[in-house]
C-alpha cells in the first residue's frame, strides 16, 4: 500500500493499526474531498442559497446539518460566486461545522476561539450566537489574522474581537468563558486529500511536537472556562497521540472536568499501543473520510463541573 499510494511505510502501518478499513481510506484519500458550504444564516436562508446556486449551474444537496449543504457539481469556482463574496456562505468542511455544533454557543454571552484563523469556525460560532454577546478570537499568525479579518467582514460579523496573540496568553484577559473552542494546531493527517504534499512532509517528530503544544493549550482552555461551561477540543489528525492521549492526560491530571458525548462519528479509542485509556473516551468521536464523507477529524467535549 505504501508503494501503491506513495506513503512512507510508517504512516501506512500506523493507519492500519488505528483506522477501520484502512485500505479503503487510502483509496478514498486519492480522490478530491467532498465539498461543503455552510450557509451564513445571519445574511441568507438555506432555501435561498440552494435556489440561487442551482440557478447558476451548481448541484447541491442537504447534509446531516440543516445549515450545511454538499456541493456535488461545481461548474466554476464556488469562491468566485457573488453569493460567496456577499458572505452568504462559507466553504467549510462538515467536520468543522460539527465541532462548532457541539460547542452549543447559541445562548452564550462570552465565547473564546483559541486558534481562530482563517475564521471558518469563528464566523460559524458568531452565527450561532446570532451576532450577539462577545466572541474573543485569538491567533498567533499575523498573516492568517488578516484572512480572518476579511472573512469576518465578508460574513458581516459584529460580535467578534480579534487578537493577534499566543493562545496560551488568554489567561491574561482575566475572563472566564461560557464556551471555549480549541481547534488545535496539529499534524493534519486528516487533510491529506486537500494537500497531498503532507504524505511526505509528515514525520513522527511532528506528532510529538504537536502533542506537547496541544497539552498546554488544552490545559489553558480548561482553566479559562466557567463552571458549567463547555470546552471543545478538536484536531484534523488521526494520530491518537494528539487526540485521545492528550484528552486522557488532562482527565488524569485535572479535577472537576468530565467528557460529554459527541453526537456524530466513530467512538474515540480507549487503547493505543501500550496505553490503556479512560473508558469515557468512547464519547469523543473520530471522523473518517471513507466512512463519514468528511475530512479526518477528532472532537472531544469537556464539561467543567468546577475549576
Amino acid at each position, binding site marked *: 500500500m505504501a508503494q501503491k499510494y506513495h506513503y512512507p511505510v510508517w504512516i501506512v502501518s500506523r493507519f492500519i493499526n488505528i483506522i477501520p478499513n484502512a485500505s479503503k481510506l487510502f483509496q478514498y484519500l486519492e480522490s478530491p474531498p467532498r465539498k461543503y458550504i455552510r450557509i451564513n444564516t445571519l445574511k441568507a436562508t438555506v432555501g435561498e442559497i440552494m435556489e440561487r446556486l442551482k440557478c447558476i449551474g451548481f448541484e447541491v444537496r442537504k447534509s446531516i446539518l440543516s445549515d450545511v449543504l454538499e456541493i456535488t457539481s461545481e461548474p466554476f469556482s464556488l*469562491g*468566485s460566486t*457573488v453569493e460567496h*463574496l*456577499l*458572505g452568504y456562505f462559507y466553504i467549510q468542511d462538515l467536520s468543522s461545522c460539527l465541532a462548532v455544533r457541539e460547542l452549543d454557543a447559541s445562548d452564550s*454571552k462570552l465565547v473564546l476561539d483559541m486558534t481562530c484563523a482563517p475564521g471558518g469556525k469563528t464566523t460559524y460560532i458568531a452565527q450561532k450566537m446570532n*451576532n*450577539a*454577546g*462577545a466572541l*474573543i478570537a485569538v491567533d498567533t499568525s499575523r*498573516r492568517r*489574522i*488578516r*484572512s480572518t*479579518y*476579511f*472573512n*469576518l*467582514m*465578508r460574513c*458581516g*460579523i*459584529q*460580535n*467578534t*474581537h*480579534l*487578537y*493577534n*496573540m499566543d493562545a496560551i496568553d488568554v489567561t*491574561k*484577559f*482575566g*475572563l472566564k468563558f461560557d464556551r471555549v473552542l480549541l481547534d488545535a494546531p496539529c499534524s493534519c493527517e486528516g487533510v491529506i486529500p486537500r494537500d497531498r504534499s503532507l504524505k511526505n512532509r509528515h514525520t513522527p517528530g511532528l506528532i510529538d511536537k504537536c502533542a506537547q503544544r496541544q497539552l498546554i493549550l488544552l490545559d489553558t482552555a480548561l482553566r479559562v472556562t466557567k463552571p458549567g461551561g463547555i470546552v471543545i477540543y478538536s484536531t484534523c489528525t488521526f494520530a491518537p497521540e494528539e487526540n485521545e492521549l492528550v484528552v486522557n492526560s488532562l482527565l488524569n491530571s485535572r479535577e472537576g472536568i468530565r467528557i460529554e458525548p459527541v453526537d456524530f462519528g466513530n467512538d474515540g479509542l480507549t487503547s493505543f499501543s501500550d496505553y490503556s485509556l479512560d473508558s469515557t473516551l468512547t464519547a469523543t468521536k473520530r471522523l473518517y473520510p471513507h466512512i463519514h464523507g468528511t475530512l479526518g477529524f477528532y472532537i472531544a467535549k469537556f464539561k467543567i463541573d468546577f475549576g
Partner: protein
Amino acid sequence: MDSYRKPTELELTILKRSFSKWGVFEYFKNKLLAIRTQGDDKRQIFLLSTDVGDIDRFPVYSGLYIGTLGKYLSPSLGMAQIIAKEAKIFPFVKVNRKAESLVIYGRDIFGDSIVEYSVSKENEVVIILNMHSEGIGLGLTRHDSTFITTKGKVTVTNVADIGQYIREERLSGSMF
C-alpha cells in the same frame, strides 16, 4: 497598538447625519459604536454587539468596520451591504448581470450597464447594486443623473467592491 473608544458627542452628531443621508438612521438607533484612531488621525468606525471595554488588551479588529469618519462617514463595503438591505432611499446605481461580474473584479461601470439609478450629482458616492438589489460595491459618479446611462462611456468609477475580500486577503500590509 490601536485602542477603541466611544464616539464623542460631536462625532455622534456627524455619524447620525451620515446615517440619515444613507437612509439607515433607524437601523443604527441604539447600536453600539466604537472609534479607532490610528496614527494618522484616521478615525475608523466599528459597529459592536456588546461593550467589551473591560478587557484590558487591544484587539487588532473589533466588531464590523462600517467606515471612516471625516466631515462625513465614508462607508465601508460592510456598511454598503447594510444600506442596501435596510435603507429605502439612498444614492445608488443598479447594474445588469454582466456588469456585476466585472464590478466584482474591480472594473468601472459603463453607462449602458446601468439599469436603474437614484438622482445623483457628479462626484457622488453611490452604492452599486446588482439585479437582486444587493450591495456589491461603492462607486463614484463621473456625471450627474442626466448622463449617467451614456452608452460606451464609463460613468461610475469603482471605489470598492466585494471582490476585494478575496483579492486583498492575500496581500500583506495594513488591513484597512
